[in-house]
Structures are given as C-alpha cells and as structure tokens.
C-alpha cells in the first residue's frame, strides 16, 4: 500500500513543471559555480604553494601562509575572505591574516552582503525553495480537488497516506540533491589540479546527509502548512513568507542582535589599552635600545633587547587576543541566536564540515601563536646558550589538521536541532492530518 502511494506521488512530482524547473536551475548553477569555485581553489592553492616557495622566512621575520581548503569549492564560507598570510617576529606577535601584498582582506567590498554562489548556497536557497514548492500542494490541493476524500475512502489509513507523501516528497527532493552533489563531486575529482583524500570524501558524504536533513525540514514544514490549509494558494503564500523569514530575514536579525548584546570594545578603548602597554614598556625598551646601539653590544645587551621587545609584543598580543576572543564570542552568540533558522544552522554545519568557517581561522591563529612562543624562546636561547640554539631549529609550521569525525562531532548540537526541527514539523503535520476534516 505504502509503496503504491509513494510510487504514485513520485511520478506526479517527476512530471510537474516545478520539479523540472528547480532541477534545471540547480544543475546549471551547480555546474557553473562548482567549475568556477574549483578553478578558483586551484589557483589559490597554486598561489599558496608559490608563496611558500618564493617568500621565505628569514632569521628575523617568520612568514606563514594559510593553505586554502579544498572543500571551499562546495562551501566557500570565510575561506576566501580571511586572508592568506601572516608574519611574526620577536617584536610582533602574528597579526591578523592579510593578502600576499600585506593588504587587509576585504578592502573593496564588492556587492555588500551578497555571498558568492556555491553548492551550499544552491542547496540552502534553491533546493529548499524547491522542497517548499513540492510540498505545498501535497495535501491542500488534493483537498481542494476532492481527491483526498476519494483516496481515504479506500482502505488507506491516514498515517500511511501522510507517511507515503513524506517519503515520496523526500525522495523527490533528495534526487536532485544527489544529482547536484554528485555533479559537484565529479567536477572536483576531474579537475587536474585537485586531489581528494578519503577524509574529504567522508566530509562530502556528511555534507550530503546534513543537506538531506535540511531539505527534509522544509518539506515537512510544507507538508504541515499544506495539511493546515485548505487552499493550495494560501499554503504557498504562507510557506513563501515563512521561507523568506527563515532564510533571508532571521539570520540577518540574529547578527544585528548579537552586535548589540555583546558589543566589542571601541577603537578608542583598544587604542587606550595599547597606549597603556607602550607606556609600561617604554623605559625598558629605551634602555634596551641604548644597549644595542653601542659600538659593540654584549650578549647581555642583545638578550635585554630581545626580552624588552618580546615582552611588549606579548602584552600587545594579549590586548589583540582578548579582542579576537570577544569577536569569536560575538560570532558564537550570533550563531546561537540564529539557531531558530534552519538555513543559518545549515551554513554553520557546512562551514565546519568544509573547514571554511571562523573556527578554522581561529585554529590557524592559535597554532601560529604557539609557533611564535617557540620562536621567542628560541631567540632567547641564542643569547644564553648559542650551542644549544644551533642544535635546535624552529619546528616547521603545518596547518592544524582535523579529521572528518572530529569536525562532525563539533557540530552535533546543530545537527540535533535540525533533526528535531524536521521531526517537530512532521509530528505537527501528522497530528494535523489525523484530525483534518476532509469534507
């Protein structure tokens, strides 16, 4: 029985214009955007390799480059916008990432607020809309046409009919999803400049699973509204407005709210804190500078110079670090506040799975800091025990690694909320349908 219902519904979906239009748009956009994004990644990766080779660190300044993430071709996140290079010395802690020319990223905001198209975007916007379009008629149209009455006059229990509709709808949504994910993966794999690891493949699979969860929420929501209304036009109207609110407006509001609830210290406050640091160290630095500018500075003079400047750099770094932590806290608050929007949750999960979110940036900076502390320690050694200094070398910097399992484990709360959202909407649709007046 269930099979018959599912088969009939799926056939109906496959014949519909909305399915074909949605599928076509999704395929064209996926092919175009993934090709461009993969090419973009390959170029950035080549730039990264060239930079590592060509711009070497010297004994004084250490330059680090951030490797672009391969899965940014699927979910660009912040990968392209946070910068690719940082430098550090005894006198300076690693600063925020910049471009290869030392420019801060985002100097020319192109189209305020619009992010570029990627697979995550296509699923978040286009396929979720398609899910809504497929779902809105599922019950209300049958009610309006009178076929619902007919169908239920047979020996079909209501729950089975609804379950059949849900499963068939999900199949109709998951089909195009599978097509676009496979298409993207094929483009990625076939690109000569790209090689995927097993871990990346697991990540792509996890992205697919999360996308299924995300789209099922919209389908279940559509089913619920379709159960609750008697006219398809009304259900579509309600659903579209809910979609605009959940996907476009609500994530925006949560960012605005987080900026107000957890404001960052002003530039003036930051400048004052930094002035206080300079003030604290000015005497030591002056003394150290005098020592080093002597005709033949001693080892103690050099050590004092090293220590005075690195102590000031460490204090500056504390001010910057505190600011950065508050930025992260603000971002977490925005993420938390936007948890009511499946679109925002989906973005967070995809960013983590693709390792293109701010957490990845923070991890990179934390590792850069650890290296900086070692560098300072080693620089001190140079003036205290030169032989020991010569015997050691600064460890090579490698980008922090994280397995797909670890990434997935870090987003379980968001995944659970997505699952719960889907279940709640389906439960509401289910109880609504059982009580529905079919006349």
């Amino acid at each position: 029985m269930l099979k018959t219902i599912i088969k009939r519904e799926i056939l109906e979906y496959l014949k519909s214009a909305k399915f074909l239009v949605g599928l076509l748009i999704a395929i064209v956009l996926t092919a175009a955007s993934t090709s461009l994004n993969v090419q973009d990644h390959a170029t950035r990766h080549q730039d990264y390799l060239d930079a590592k080779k060509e711009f070497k660190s010297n004994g004084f300044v250490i330059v680090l480059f951030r490797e672009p993430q391969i899965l940014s071709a699927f979910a660009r996140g912040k990968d392209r916008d946070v910068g690719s290079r940082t430098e550090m010395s005894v006198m300076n802690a690693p600063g925020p990432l910049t471009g290869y020319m030392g420019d801060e990223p985002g100097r020319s905001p192109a189209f305020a607020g619009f992010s570029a198209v990627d697979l995550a975007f296509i699923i978040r916007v286009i396929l979720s809309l398609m899910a809504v379009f497929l779902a809105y008629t599922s019950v209300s149209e049958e009610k309006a046409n009178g076929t619902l009455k007919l169908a239920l006059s047979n020996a079909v229990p209501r729950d089975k009919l609804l379950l059949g509709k849900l499963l068939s709808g999900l199949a109709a949504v998951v089909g195009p999803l599978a097509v676009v994910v496979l298409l993207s993966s094929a483009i990625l794999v076939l690109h000569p400049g790209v090689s995927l690891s097993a871990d990346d493949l697991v990540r792509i699979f996890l992205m697919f699973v999360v996308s299924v969860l995300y789209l099922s929420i919209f389908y279940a929501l559509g089913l619920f509204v379709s159960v609750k209304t008697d006219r398809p036009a009304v259900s579509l109207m309600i659903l579209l407005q809910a979609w605009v609110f959940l996907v476009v407006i609500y994530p925006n509001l949560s960012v605005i709210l987080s900026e107000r609830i957890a404001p960052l210290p002003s530039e003036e406050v930051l400048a004052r804190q930094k002035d206080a640091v300079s003030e604290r160290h000015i005497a030591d630095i002056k003394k150290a500078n005098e020592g080093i500018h002597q005709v033949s500075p001693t080892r103690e003079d050099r050590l004092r110079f090293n220590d005075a400047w690195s102590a000031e750099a460490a204090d500056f770094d504390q001010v910057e670090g505190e600011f950065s932590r508050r930025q992260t806290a603000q971002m977490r608050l925005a993420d938390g506040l936007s948890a009511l929007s499946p679109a925002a949750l989906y973005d967070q999960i995809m960013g983590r799975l693709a390792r293109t979110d701010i957490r990845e940036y923070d991890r990179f900076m934390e590792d850069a800091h650890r290296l900086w502390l070692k560098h300072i320690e080693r620089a001190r050694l140079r003036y205290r025990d030169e032989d020991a200094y010569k015997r050691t070398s600064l460890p090579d910097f490698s980008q922090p690694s994280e397995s797909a399992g670890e990434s997935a484990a870090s987003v379980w709360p968001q995944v659970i909320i997505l699952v719960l959202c889907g279940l709640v909407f389906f439960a509401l649709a289910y109880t609504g349908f059982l009580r529905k007046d079919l006349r």
Partner: protein
Amino acid sequence: MKTIIRREFLEHAQSLQFMVLLVLSLALFAGNGLIFVESYGVHMDSYQKNLAFMNSWKSTVRLELFRLPNSLVFVAEGGDNKRPSEYYLLPGGQVTAGSPNLRAFKLPPVPPLDWSFIIGVLFSLYAILLGYSSISGEREQGTLRLVLSNSLGRAKLLAAKYISILLVLLVPLLAGALLSLTIIAGFLPQLLTLANVSRAGLVFIIALAYISLFALLSLLFSALIPRSALVLLVLLAIWVVFSVIIPSSSVIIGEKLAAAPREIQTARMFEPMVDKEISAKIEEIVKRGERGGFKTEEDMRAAADRAFEEGQVKVNQFYGDFRRAQRQRLEAVRDLSRLSPAALFQYAAEGVVRSGPGGEDQFLQQVGDYSRVYDAYILKKLGKVVPASNFSFGESVTFNGKKISLDSPEPREYEGDKSDFPVFSERQASIGAGLKSALGDLLGLVLWNIILAGLAFSAFLRTDVR
C-alpha cells in the same frame, strides 16, 4: 477605472500577504532607523575627535585625513561600514587608505539592514505575491470575462490593476520609510536637512520605479500563463535569479573576467621592481663614487637623492597600478551584476546618497585636489617637495676612504609658523552630482519598466479571456 482601482486595492489590502508585508516593513524600517541612530552616534563621536586631531596636526611630513560619516547610510550602506575612515596623505600626492573596518569579519556575512535591502528583497517579492494572480486568477474564476464584457478597454483594466498593485505597496513602503525617518529625526534632528530629505525622497522615487518593474513583471506573466500557481512559480524563479543568483554569481564571474593580476603576481613583482628601479641605480652611484666619479660627497648624495626620488615615484606608481587593478575587478563585478534590476536599484540608491565605491572616489578626488594645495604649501615653506612613499631605503658606501650612509630623502617637517596651513575639509556632493552618478542605473530601471509595460500590454491584448 477608479472603481476598479478601488476594488483591487481593497482586495489586496485585505490579503494575508499585505498584512504580513505591513508588519514586516514597519518592523524592519524601525530596526533600520534605530540601528542607524546608534551607529551614527558612535561614528560621529569618533569623527569629531579625529577632526580635532586632524586640524591640529599641521605636518609637512604626513597628514591623516578622516572621512565624514555618511548621514544617509541607512538608505544604502554600500559596504561603507567596512571601508576605512582614515587616509594618509604624503607629500607628492601619495594617498594610502587606513585599515578597513574588519571588526565584524567573524560574523556571518549578512546584508546590511538598509532601505535598499528591505525594498530590494522584500518589496520586490511582495510585488510578485500581490500581483501574480491579477489576471490569471480572475481568468480562473471567470471574472475576467465578466469585467471585460463591460465597456472597459483592456489597456485601462491593465493600467488599473498596475496602479492598484503599486498603491497597495506604497502604503507599507511609505509607512516604513516615514517611521525610519521619524526615528532618525527624533534622535538626530540635525540630520533632517532639506538636502538629506530630498536625497531620501529621490531614493524613494527610484524604489517606486524598481517595485513597479516587479508589478509589471507579475502582470506580464499573469497575462501569459493561464494557471496562477504556475505564474507564481515562474515569477519566483525570476525573483531568485534577479535578487540572489545574478548578484551572487557576478562576484565569481566578474572576478574571473576582469584581467586584473592576482595579488601574488603583484607581490612577486615588487622586489625585482625595487631592485631595478632603486637598488641597481644606487649600486651604480656607489660604484661610481668608489671609482671617484663624483667630485664631492654632496654630488654623490644629490645623485642618490635623485635616484631615490625617482624610485619612490615608481613605487607609488606600482601601488597605484595595483589598486587600480583591484578597483577594475570590483567594477567588473558590479557591471556584470547590473543585469539584475536589484543591483541597478542598489547602485542607483548608493549613487544618490554617495555611499559605496563612488562615495569613496569622491572623497579621494577631494583629497587629490587638496594634495595640490598641500604640496604648494610645502614648496612655499621648504622650497622643495620630496615625493614620499611608505617605503624608505638606505645604503652604506665608502667614499674617499670614509664610510657614509646614503638614505632615501625623507620629507622634512617645517618648524616655522604654520598658522596659514591649509586645512582639509570634506565637501558634501550636491544632489545634482548624486543624481548624475545614479542616472545610468536609474535609466536602466526605467528601460526595464518601459519594456515590461509594453510586453505586459501586448500580452494582455492577446490574452484569450474565455
């Protein structure tokens, strides 16, 4: 015709979508006003402090210039919140921007809650939701036949439907915009100048042209396609393409099309350029000096100064080219996105309120004008303008057995009376200038309207009303 407009208006005004739009519009415009009041206060505070500093800092070595916060960013923010507010001017006309505002770089990238977002996204969608069934719905119900059996021309009926959609959208738009302006006027009455209100009014008119385009689009497809559900589907697909897909795709396609060199290509050219333009020339002077090619140390220093100065000019040119290339890439992205009326509307609004890259260009233009006055002042006081860049160079050389160091010439500070120091003050562009920069985009919107009106009219004339 009046009767039809009234009837249609009432019908729309009773609909669910109208009520939701009204509530959303009031809430979002109120939020827009409140957020602006808060952030403008912070920006203005810091600008006032910086201005006092700027006017007291009379230096012939380096000047810090600050941009006046735009009092109309609530209409179209145009990325201004991320742009630097501080610029440095060096003798010789070299201008460098301070750091962009990256305080919010960790937050999810969401569009700013300005008028251009609220109207560009929300009102265009509701123009569709209110208009999609105008003709197809009536045809499905059979009322279209009835209406047209009266002595009423099709053109008039279409015009009446068009006007009623516009009027019904005008209510939440006007209510929202007035609420936003009232909040701003309540907290910041000094901003309620004739110039500001006229600019906001101008954006309001452009908004009407933009919304009208979607109303016409709805009528066109409502006349072409007999089934309302399909009309809505097609219109929503177009809305997604216009509001989301074209602007977002143009970011990646535009960057690809622009022939700007990548950052690393420029970065790797930097050192060879400095070697060729400065180090090689200085090395030659050093060798010549050691060979006894200069009569005096002063001759050698003068030759090195010349080489350094020419080198600084080349470095500045190099950076100028890099910035221009970046700017061209930005323009390529923006030009491509102009395929979408949503982008046309946003850029027209930015043009009128002088935000966005155009606003920054205007500021830099004024800085360029001022730099000539500044250089003339330095020339008058010090007798020479040393073109400076953000880089300095130094070389050590043995001349006549004596070790001397050749350093790049640095601009000198004038120590005398600076009471006649020219002060930089930013001028607000006239409304005419704003309108001029928005004209192209506005014409684009008008053109869309004319084409769609023509198409909607001819489609409706051919519609089979049976």
